[in-house]
Each structure stands twice: as structure tokens, then as C-alpha cells.
């Protein structure tokens, strides 16, 4: 089967590239093996919170040029300031059109969001029910925080949240309380409510009657000036509609935090992008895995001719250009063997670290980043990878499969995914392979 472009991986990077290809009028397919890292994420778009040397960044735009000079190997430095911000703007528009309005600080600053652990994490663009605290924390306007514990729900611990929040010096004068709330719908269940995950509760709360009972209880424990911290327990795709209703019924300032997986906040993004991709005419091959490809010599470079998947063992899929958006270890974009890390589909060259001992820090929750998180595919400035040192000229790498950055420590995961996905399609359109 023949396409103009084929994208391997259906995470935020893959969908960004896919939607852009469709915009450019290309016949496009996305192949995605299972759901992506978004199902575990906060659903906020991190742009850049720290430099690789650990310095805190308040306004990514303001420091961009300096950052690019200092860290030329970082994907942002290859994409360039203009395209990075153009891509984020584009992403914001696309998601708004799919019913998810994302917002950021007007001056371009990062903001803090309260995490499920009760710590603060710097991010850049968030969904409507994320309360954006200023990065100059002393300027916050918070008066009181109410943390809601859902009775019998084990994937969120309000006590830990309130305990940790009260350790924050800037919060020493505000009241932080945690309150237990029960959900009536649990009582009729033939199951043990302790086994319920966020998605089970979301299904109970999708009933209008349940949500109004829940709203009544919330109104009794908080007032509109408070920040009401709720675990993300609404919606199966339509979570924002349920939250809007809850907000309407209560008038409260709700702050959602992701729970243990599945994260309903991240799922919202993935489902919105996936639906848009299909509606715009894309071909989505869900639950299929790319297993290998055929390369041919093309001058002194290589060209990827076709790929095979678990379902397409015999009949190859061909395209003028391919985008690799297969994620990192967690999504099986890389595979760690005992003494070696490999990219499993094409065996592309990685910036691996030889000694296994030095893949990670001694402590799991270490302040310093784990070196394995920066392991990734080596690319040229157009994000073409190499196979045994030879450039593959019509394959472009994006998102967390790339080398040269640490999405967690530098707080830049989704930003890199969006901007490299977007940029790769620009590169592809310039590539002579597409004769249009």
C-alpha cells in the first residue's frame, strides 16, 4: 500500500506530524502500537523548565537564543526559535478546534502546577482546569487550598498532597485542608470500590444525577476563592464537558491533578488528536507495530523504501517519506538489552553510553538526571538518522526518540515532541522525494 508519508508512532509527536501532513495535502498513515506516553502524563505541555546544567528557566522565549548557543545538540537548537513558537501556536489552534482550549501565561512565562504528590512543577501550557501558579511564587494570590480525598479511591492521597504543600515556604500563610468526600454511586456497585481506578469513577460521574450529588458535597466544603484540588476523575474522552458542568453547578475554582495511570488528562489530548486525524482523512493503523524496513542505497546516503508490520508481514507499506515517532523505552521506541541499548526497528545509530553502570544515578529520585533519559537517536540538523554511519535521507526522527535532551529533568517533553514533529514535516516538504 502506498502513501505520501507514513508516521511510526501515535504519541504527541506522531499526531503533530500526521496532522501537519494532512494539512499539506499528503496522503498520510499513522501506525501506532498501543496507546502512548500521554496516558501517563499530566496533559500539560512542558516547554523548557531547566537548562541541561540544572538552571531554572522562567521565560523560555527570553532565553532561547542564549540556550541554543550554549546547547547546540539540544533538539530546540536545531529547530530554531521561530519554528518552535510557530509550532506551539499551531498546536494550540488545532487543539482548540478539537474542543480542548490550552492556555499559557500572557508574558510567555512558565507556570507552576500542583502535582499529585503536592509538589510544584514548572510547565508552559495547560488545560482549562489546571490552576496556573506564577513562577515567581511569592506573587501568588492563593488564600486557601482544599484537597479532596475520594473515599475508597486509592490512586490519590490527599494527605500527602496537603503535607507536602505546607512545606513550601511561600505557602506558609495559607490554609491547606484535606477533606473526604464520598461518591454515592459506589454503594450500588457489585465490586469492591478499592479496586476502582480513575476511569471507573469517571464512568460513574458521567451520570448527570451523580455529578449534581457530587457538586452539592463540594459546595459544602469550599468557597469560590479557594483552590479545590480534585484528582482527575472525569470523562471518558469528554472530561472537559463534565468539569464545565461541575464548575457551573458549584462556581468553584477547580484544579485537576492526574492520578496514577491511566491519566484522564493526557487521554483527552490523545483522543482529540486521533479523532481529528481520522476526520481529516488520515489512515490510522491502531494496535499494529512496525517490525522492519527495506533500505536502498541512494548516492552516498540511504533511502527507506518500505516498511513491514505485525499485520503487514507480506505486503510492504511504501511512502516517499517516513517519520519515526516511536517514543522512548517506555513505548518500546528503544530496547535495553543487558549490555546494550538498541533502536529495534531499523537499528539506527544511538548516542549510547558504553558502561551499563553509568546508565543511571545511584538513587532513583536523584536530583541529577539519569543519563539513560538522554539516550536517543543521533541525527543531522534535518533530523535524519544514521544507519551504521550512513544518513537515511527520507526518514525523520521526532519526539522522545531523539538524542540530546532529557524530557523530564529539562521539563521539555511535549515541547520537543510538538516542535520536532512540526519541523520534520517542513523538512520533508523540502525533500525532493515529494514531487509536488
Amino acid at each position, binding site marked *: 500500500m502506498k502513501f505520501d508519508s507514513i508516521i511510526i508512532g501515535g504519541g504527541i509527536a506522531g499526531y503533530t506530524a500526521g496532522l501537519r501532513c494532512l494539512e499539506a495535502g499528503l496522503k498520510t498513515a499513522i501506525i501506532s502500537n498501543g496507546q502512548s506516553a500521554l*496516558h501517563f502524563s499530566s496533559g500539560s505541555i512542558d516547554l523548557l523548565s531547566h537548562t541541561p546544567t540544572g538552571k531554572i528557566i522562567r521565560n523560555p522565549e527570553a532565553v532561547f537564543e542564549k540556550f541554543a548557543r550554549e546547547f547546540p545538540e539540544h533538539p530546540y537548537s536545531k529547530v530554531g526559535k521561530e519554528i518552535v513558537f510557530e509550532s506551539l501556536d499551531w498546536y494550540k489552534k488545532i487543539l482548540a478546534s478539537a474542543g480542548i482550549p490550552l492556555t499559557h501565561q500572557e508574558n510567555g512565562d512558565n507556570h507552576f502546577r500542583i502535582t499529585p504528590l503536592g509538589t510544584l512543577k514548572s510547565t508552559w501550557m495547560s488545560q482549562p482546569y489546571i490552576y496556573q501558579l506564577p513562577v515567581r511564587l511569592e506573587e501568588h494570590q492563593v488564600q486557601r487550598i482544599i484537597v479532596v480525598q475520594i473515599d475508597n479511591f486509592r490512586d490519590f492521597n490527599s494527605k500527602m498532597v496537603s503535607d507536602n504543600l505546607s512545606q513550601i515556604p511561600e505557602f506558609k500563610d495559607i490554609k491547606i485542608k484535606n477533606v473526604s468526600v464520598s461518591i454515592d454511586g459506589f454503594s450500588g456497585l457489585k465490586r469492591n470500590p478499592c479496586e476502582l481506578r480513575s476511569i471507573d469513577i469517571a464512568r460513574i460521574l458521567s451520570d448527570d444525577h451523580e455529578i449534581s450529588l457530587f457538586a452539592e458535597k463540594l459546595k459544602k466544603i469550599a468557597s469560590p476563592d479557594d483552590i479545590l484540588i480534585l484528582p482527575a476523575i472525569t470523562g471518558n474522552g469528554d472530561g472537559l464537558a463534565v468539569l464545565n458542568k461541575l464548575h457551573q453547578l458549584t462556581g468553584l475554582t477547580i484544579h485537576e491533578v492526574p492520578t496514577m495511570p491511566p491519566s484522564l488528562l493526557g487521554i483527552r489530548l490523545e483522543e482529540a488528536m486521533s479523532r481529528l486525524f481520522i476526520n481529516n482523512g488520515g*489512515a490510522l493503523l*491502531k494496535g*499494529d507495530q512496525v517490525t522492519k524496513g527495506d533500505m536502498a542505497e541512494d548516492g552516498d546516503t540511504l533511502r527507506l523504501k518500505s516498511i513491514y508490520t505485525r499485520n503487514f508481514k507480506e505486503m510492504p507499506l511504501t511512502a516517499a517519506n517516513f517519520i519515526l515517532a516511536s517514543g522512548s523505552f517506555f513505548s518500546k521506541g528503544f530496547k535495553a538489552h543487558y549490555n546494550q541499548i538498541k533502536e529495534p526497528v531499523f537499528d539506527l545509530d544511538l548516542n549510547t553510553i558504553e558502561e551499563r553502570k553509568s546508565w543511571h544515578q545511584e538513587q532513583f529520585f536523584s536530583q541529577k538526571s539519569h543519563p539513560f533519559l538522554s539516550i536517543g537517536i543521533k541525527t543531522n540538523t534535518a533530523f535524519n538518522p544514521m544507519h551504521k554511519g550512513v544518513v537515511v535521507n527520507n526518514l525523520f526522527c521526532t519526539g522522545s526518540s531523539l538524542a540530546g535532551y532529557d524530557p523530564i529533568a529539562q521539563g521539555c517533553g511535549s515541547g520537543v515532541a510538538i516542535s520536532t514533529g512540526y519541523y520534520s514535516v517542513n523538512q520533508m516538504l523540502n525533500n525532493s522525494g515529494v514531487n509536488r
Partner: protein
Amino acid sequence: MNIAQNSFEKCIKCTICTVYCPVAKANPHYPGPKECGPDGARLRIKSLDYYDQALKLCTNCKRCETACPSNVNVGDIIAVARGKFEKKVINPKLMRDFILSRTDLFGTLSTPFAPVVNKITDSQIIKTVMHKTIGIDKHKALPKYSQGTFRNWFKKNAPDQEQYPRQISYFHGCYVNYNDPDLGKDLLKVLNAMNIGLKLLNKEKCCGVPLIANGFHDKARKNAHFNVKNMTEAVEKFNTPILSTSSTCSFTLKQEYPHVLDVDNSQVVDKIEYITSFLLREFMNGNAPKLKEINKTIVYHTPCHLERSGLAIFTIELLRAVPGLKVIVLDSECCGLAGTYGFKKENYDVSMKIGKHLFETIKNSDADYAITDCETCKWQIEENTNLKTIHPINLIAQGLTA
């Protein structure tokens, strides 16, 4: 190799499968794929007392497997556990499950008397009686039987078919044989227009999917061995591909045999193909029949098992290759019928709740037809939307010029 045996160890407990389970979505009492599948498998090794009767609420749609990022065969684990541990209590519902799952037996009995049988099963009184006694929901119409089987019709045409230079073997399944021979006839027309002849297997039995879904695995396994034997013969004798027009038959022949029934089909598995992937490949290799413009709008519904096989793309691309046709691809979601599931009184409400969004989208769509690859999706959509629902092959046959 039965991969369902130990694939639960790959589970990382992320619960993503449960997010995409249509039954868990509609029925809060169903614990969902994670608990019923990999979690339960671990406990069931310890003691059978941990077997939960709630597993029979699973429709075997496999959407959990498509979603799982760790490639756990969640649906297979559940189906295998049901086959092994489900207790068969002798009561009227067992009889109902027996009737619903013996599609070939009742097809053979009914087709000679089709007009009478159809009238009887359609009557309000009989529907109420079936609802009260054996638990076939009174809202449902049982599938209509055709007068005369496809096999019988084909006998007269067989000699013609042998004149074509290329041949394929057709696994028609129960549905084409007893309920909708026209689909088989349409296939024959389309293939002939491409200069390909159609053969039948020497013999075939129901693929077994309703038997699997109702927990009659021993009988299903017998059918599987029988079908594998007949397919092997066809491949050895004629070296033809084996094509099916049912997304569920082909999924079962290819995947459920080894994964759920532990029946080795390795000698034929690569020969079995769902029709649209065969056709699209022919089209792309230049062997498309001449088609006139079909200036119609259709909505396409992806059946669960086609989604799981990853083959929906072939049907969609094939439809997009029909000149003049406007193709709207619906969100891929379960229609709620899941073979025999929605016919059962105890499942009717959940089944309707699962399908609600799909029905509403179709009702609001202004399309001329709905198109789907699965016979049971067709019943469910026609019954709940009043939109005529046809198979992709029916549509292509409409476009043939000669």
C-alpha cells in the same frame, strides 16, 4: 503455542485496556479487562475459586488488546479462562446459548423452510415467549434465513468457475450460506469481473466464533480441526488463497484458532485473507474491475475484529478507490451486538448503551448506506438506525459495468 497462557506477565497494571473496554464503559458492575484478564489469570493459577462469573459479560471484542501498550493478549486470556472454567448450569438460558451458537445446525434446519421460520421468529408472540423462556431479548429480530443455501446455488455455477485462469477458495461461513447468499453471489460477480474464478472448500463448518463466545470451546475446537483440515487440502491441491467475506470468520480462522482454541493452523494461516485486503492488492496491481461512478455518500463502521486484525485500512482504501463515492469514516467503536451477546435478555440494555453513540451518529449522517464488514454489525445498525447497511462487496458489485 498458546500465548494467552503467560502473556499476563507482560502486564504493567496501567489500566489503559479498561479505558477502551466498551462493556466496562456501559456497565459499572463489569470489572473490566485488567481485572478479568491479567489480574485474574494470576489468581486463577492459585485456585479456581477465584474464577469470577462476571467474565461472561465480556463480548470478546478485543478492543482491550488494541489499546494495551504492552501487547498483552487481554481478550484471549479472558476467552481462554471462560472456556476452561465457566460452569454450564443446565437451564433455559443454556438452551438459548446452545441455539444462538449452533449457527450451522440451525441454518441447515431452517433454510428449507425459510419463509415459515422467518414468520415465526418475527411474530410478537413468539418473541415474547422467547424473551420469557430462554432469554432472547424481545426487542431483537432474529436473523432471517434465506430460501436455499449458497452452497446449493453454487453447485450449478461451479463448472463455469473453473474456466478462469486464476482461482481462489472461498470460506463462505454460516451467514452467507444460510442468511445472505446474495453476498456470496456478489463476490462471485466481482471476482469474475477481475478474471478470477471462485471455488469452495470441499466442506466447511461454522468457524466457531459464537461457540467461543458462549463458552462451548470443545465444540469450537472440533470445528477448528475440521476447517483446518479442509483448508489444508485446498491449499495442497490447488494452492489457492482462502478468502472470507466476514471479518469475524477470517479473524477466527487466523487468530482465535491458535490463540484461544490452541489449534495449530500454521500450515494455512498465511493463505487465509479477508476479502478487502486481497481486492485492494489486486486493484493496486492494476487488476481492478471496470467500475461506473457511484455518486452516493456512505458511512463506514469498523467492526471490532477487523480493528484488532489491523485490516480496516484495506476496506477504507478500497471504498475510497470507488469512483464518485463519498466515504465518511465513523469513530471506531463497538456496535454493542458482538455476535450473539446483544440477543440475550440480560445483555440487551448494556448492548444498547454501548451502541448509542454510533447509532446517533449514523442517524444524523444523511448517508445513503452504512457499510461494514461484519454481518452482526449489519443487523445491529439496521435494527437501530433504519439505514440500509451493506457489505463493501455489495457496493462494488453495484458499480460493475457489465
